[in-house]
């Protein structure tokens, strides 16, 4: 039984070894094919479909786009690098074929212009905010001055009334000290 077990273990190892030897190349091929597909998809996603509107070769179902995708896969399988394949399409169609243009030359405008617009808009907004704050402060000061004048007028009337004989007591003759301080501070601002 022990001998049988040993031989069966050896057989099992042999079978496993054989299977491994057979399966490994197939697995390797599967991996290669998968990586070629992934690389092809990556390249195709960066190329514009020539017969579509703003669709990549990967997204498009147009016959030409599908053919371009097949060509990319074939070129990758033949050992061409992704850069060389992209350059091939640029050499045929121009930089237009790239969904994301290279940041050089006139293309820099595409990258820098939005930044410039944001900076310009920020500067304009800052200017406007300053102007609004200035206007707001001015109108606040005006309001406080009016309140103060009104309170002074009331103050003088109340004082005159208080000074008359038989006038009611307990009526505040002036703004409270706290209100006075608040008004002073507001005016200083």
């Amino acid at each position, binding site marked *: 039984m022990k001998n049988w077990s040993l031989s069966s273990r050896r057989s099992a190892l042999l079978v496993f070894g054989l299977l491994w030897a057979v399966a490994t190349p197939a697995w390797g091929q599967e991996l290669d094919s998968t990586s070629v597909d992934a690389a092809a998809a990556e390249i195709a996603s960066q190329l514009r479909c*020539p*017969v579509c509107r703003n669709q990549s070769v990967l997204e498009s179902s147009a*016959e*030409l786009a599908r*053919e*371009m995708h*097949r*060509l990319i896969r074939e070129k990758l399988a033949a050992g061409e690098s992704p850069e060389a394949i992209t350059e091939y399409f*640029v*050499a*045929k*169609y*121009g930089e237009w074929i790239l969904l994301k243009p290279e940041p050089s030359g006139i293309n820099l405008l595409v990258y820098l212009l939005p930044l410039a617009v944001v900076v310009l808009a920020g500067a*304009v907004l800052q*200017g*406007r905010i300053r*102007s609004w704050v200035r206007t707001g402060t001015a109108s606040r000061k005006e309001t406080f001055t009016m309140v103060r004048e009104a309170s002074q007028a009331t103050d003088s009337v109340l004082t005159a009334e208080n000074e008359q004989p038989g006038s009611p007591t307990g009526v505040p003759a002036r703004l409270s000290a706290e209100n006075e301080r608040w008004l002073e501070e507001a005016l200083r601002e």
Partner: protein
Amino acid sequence: MRRHLGWILPLLTLPVLGLLGYGLTRDTFTLPSPLVGNEAPPFALETFRGDTLSLTDLRGRVVVINFWASWCGPCRVEHPGLRNIERLYDSEEVVLLGIPYLDRRADSERFMTAFGGDWMQLVDPSNRTAIDYGVYGPPETFFIDQNGTVVRKRIGAMRWDAARATIDSLLAESPVAESRDQDADLSAAAVDDS
């Protein structure tokens, strides 16, 4: 802010107007192609008649390659112009080739039978030659000089007079241009009359 509008508005408007003016003065039928000025992508394709034609075998002749399709309206519009090229120029000097694009062969053949013309039609399997020439959509026409260099790419229905001007300028560079020009003028008059 309002006081700055006086110079900010023109500053923003002028470049836009400049671009607009530039765009309006361009020939919209001539498309900038990276191939122009470079060697034409070589090919060896089967003709509708069954033999194989290689572009390199046509060196020394002006080659006009027309990508077209039977389903394409502008291709019908420009077809008489292509027939003029076929009739007017000697095939030893100017070779006109048609490459159907995204089209069924039977439909292409029916089109040629219906509208006439006997220039060579090539089978482009999987449209690989079209991709090699950076074709977007038919019709697109490439003019290749005697040295095998792409000199012009035209898109849309090609105007006969523009095509003729391009071909004549290429032929003018060849040594036998003068005698041929006289014949061409006579033939052109005959074609225009017909």
